[in-house]
């Protein structure tokens, strides 16, 4: 009898950037830093307390880079799921019409963050912050139908109301679960590497405002500060 992988690895993970899957990603890492002050007072060796001062999230993400518009020449050799529009920064835009530019969410209720505009100077002021999400793939199990009892039906109805009233910021499809969500990101650098011995690789560094994970949702401090 086979065994299903339990732990999160590169093999069973998926990266969602600006609500789209990042294909041919090779690695991602992030660091949450909370700077602290360590006040020392006279008459004592140890610090008096360790006081938080600032909260920062930053990280990096790498992909294997491939060229654009190669399908008509190399289609039969192209690996599965490679997009003809390539996979560099310009491919991270939203599909179809960008409703977010009008301040509207897309069909899935998400706001596009304009990650594709982060390295084009003329677009800097239109580009908005975006989210990076790490998901774990799971075996797909057929959803059980709600029981016929009154309580089962009531629970199903409550869940449906929940889904309508408060949309989860992450909305994984069947067979996936969200593990990490880096909210309100912007790319801060793009680095391209091509050597004779490896495939071309593109590395992005980013900063985020918040780090959420499946055990912790970060909430903003200083309520109302942004709007004043």
């Amino acid at each position, binding site marked *: 009898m086979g065994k299903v992988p339990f732990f999160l690895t590169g093999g069973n993970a998926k990266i969602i950037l600006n609500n789209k899957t990042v294909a041919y990603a090779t690695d991602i890492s992030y660091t949450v830093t909370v700077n602290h002050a360590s006040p020392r007072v006279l008459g004592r060796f140890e610090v008096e307390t360790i006081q938080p001062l600032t909260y920062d999230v930053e990280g990096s993400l790498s992909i294997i880079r491939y060229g654009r518009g190669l399908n008509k020449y190399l289609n039969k050799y192209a690996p599965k799921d490679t997009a003809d529009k390539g996979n560099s920064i310009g491919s991270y835009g939203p599909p179809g019409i960008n409703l977010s530019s009008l301040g509207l969410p897309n069909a899935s209720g998400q706001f596009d963050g304009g990650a594709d505009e982060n390295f084009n100077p003329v677009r800097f002021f239109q580009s908005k912050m975006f989210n990076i999400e790490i998901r774990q793939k799971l075996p797909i*199990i057929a959803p059980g139908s709600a029981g016929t009892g009154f309580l089962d039906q009531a629970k199903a109805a409550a869940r449906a109301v929940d889904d309508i009233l408060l949309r989860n910021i992450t909305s994984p499809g069947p067979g996936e679960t969200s593990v990490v969500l880096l909210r309100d990101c912007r790319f801060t650098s793009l680095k391209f590497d091509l050597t004779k011995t490896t495939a071309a690789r593109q590395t992005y560094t980013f900063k985020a405002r918040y780090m959420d994970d499946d055990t912790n949702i970060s909430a903003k401090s200083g309520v109302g500060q942004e709007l004043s």
Partner: protein
Amino acid sequence: MGKIDNAFTKQGTVTGASSALTEQLFNSAFGALSPLNNFGRYLTGSRCIIKVNNKLFGFAFKASYNISTLQEEIWTIDDWTPWELAPQRVMVTGTLGMFHIPGKGPAKELVQPNVLSFLHHKYITIEIRDHMTDQVIFKTNKAVITNKSQTIEAGTLSTIELQWKAVGWFDEMQPNFPVGHDTSDGGVEQVGKGNFLDNAVGAALDSFGF
């Protein structure tokens, strides 16, 4: 596949959102104020909010103030130490550092007078408050902006520094005459209802707008 129970899916439910809200309110309301909590003992910039004219200045990043309670040394002939330190003046000055949000400059927000309102501009209020404990750190109800300097430079955010002067101030303690302090003339014992000093306290606080 059924819904996985984690922080994300809880966030997407009414019950999860309300319990998270309750937890945050509980943490912020009691956690910071608990006498057992020694963690937030020292004041930091991140826990201070600034209000000008009772309006939150969320784009401010720095505040400083200087309170001078000047005392005159009374020198007399045939004495080599001052005979007395006589109260002279109280001066309150300070600065506010902020980012510039276009359309929300100090003049637009009616904080600094413009060339025509200069003679008749109202005093402004400045309040710095610890939002963890809601305690006032500094407040003045009669301040005026005396100087504004702005820096606009390629490669950095534009910043504004306002310098101000104020008449009177209060902080963690409301102003009052000293009670219980030892004085040579026993003046504090004279503070009582209806006497001269008591009336003077009220008049002084009124004049400072407290």
